């Protein structure tokens, strides 16, 4: 077995030591720092991006909260203005309604009064005419003059719905 030939142990160990030391220097001074730097750079970039994303998210949340607050404020303001306008409108219409109501009742009262007066006038005309008709009918039927006072009383009674 060539592996057990001690003649070559010296050269193999010598070149193993040389190669390994050279390789160690190449790795620790050249290759590994490059890889380490890139990995570190990537880790930093990822952490930085995550932080930026978290910050942006917080900002967006704050903006949303602000927006919702303004929206609520605007809504409350609108409701208040709406209610005030409605109140004012109903007060105005109530006042106008009341005014119209009074005017109408005044007109109704005046009309009722006029109707009463007209009825009074009509009734007194009817009475005097009834007395004259009764006088004339008495003259024709009985002859002579009837007692005016008595006729008056009878007509009065008849007008009151008590005729007989």
């Amino acid at each position, binding site marked *: 077995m060539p592996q057990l030939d001690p003649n070559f142990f010296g050269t193999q160990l010598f*070149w193993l030591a040389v190669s390994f030391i050279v390789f160690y220097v190449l790795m620790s001074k050249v290759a590994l720092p490059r890889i380490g730097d890139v990995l570190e750079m990537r880790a930093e970039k990822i952490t930085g991006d995550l932080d930026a994303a978290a910050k942006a998210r917080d900002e967006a949340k704050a903006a949303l909260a602000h927006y919702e607050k303004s929206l609520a404020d605007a809504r409350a303001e609108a409701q208040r203005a709406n209610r005030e306008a409605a109140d004012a409108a109903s007060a105005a219409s109530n006042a106008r309604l009341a005014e119209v109501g009074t005017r109408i009742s005044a007109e109704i009262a005046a009309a009722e009064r006029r109707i009463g007066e007209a009825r009074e006038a009509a009734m007194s005309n009817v009475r005097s005419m009834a007395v004259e008709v009764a006088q004339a009918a008495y003259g024709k039927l009985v002859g002579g003059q009837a007692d005016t006072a008595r006729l008056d009383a009878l007509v009065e009674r008849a007008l009151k719905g008590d005729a007989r």
Partner: protein
Amino acid sequence: MASPLEQFQIEPLIKLPKIAGIDVSYTNSALWMTIAIGLATLFLVLGMRQRALVPGRWQSMAEISYEFVSTMLSEQVGSAGRPYFPFIFTLFMFILFGNLLGMVPYSFTFTSHIIVTFGLAFTVFLGVTIIAFAKHGVHFLSFFVPKGVPVVMLFLMVPIEILSYLTRPVSLSIRLFANMMAGHTMLKVFAGFIIGLGIWGGWAPLALNVVLTGFEILVCFLQAYVFAVLTCIYLNDAIHLHH
């Protein structure tokens, strides 16, 4: 026909003068170590050349290698293991590339040599023991005394604990070496059958070799991972003295 073990033969490519009586000729083993570290460095450095925030496929592979070892280390050792990350990463990539390059036809698998894997494992063992003594001083020796064991049993347990600690580099190196050597020998043996059985019978070992090649690639990853994860576990023992 070539022996299945011929692929493990060391061949000096450049003769170099001896240093302190040791032959340090540049061999095919050394050549493939050079290729492995060169390719691994190019794989990582060229993969990361765009330094893209959203990685492409190549950059993803480089990053996955990094994060794979990084996760393994932090799972086994925690944050205290961070300073040793470059070493664990170098170890993992060195073994992984050595294993994978061995799958290239006509290449040489330096991780199939016990002296190479033992060199790595012994370095780990030595380093971990030094870290343990540096961190805990003499208190580290309590690592060999299991808790809640009757005093009489300690005469038996302490030697066993010390022995199991000392065999760590042996088991660590033999595991990798044996896996790589067995796999490559098996591939070679079945490849020999293909030639031996000829155009009519050779298809069965060829099909088997295709399956085995896939399996061997899995073993390449797995053994590199096992070596690295065991190193992490030993490191954790040294740093935290858990038992």
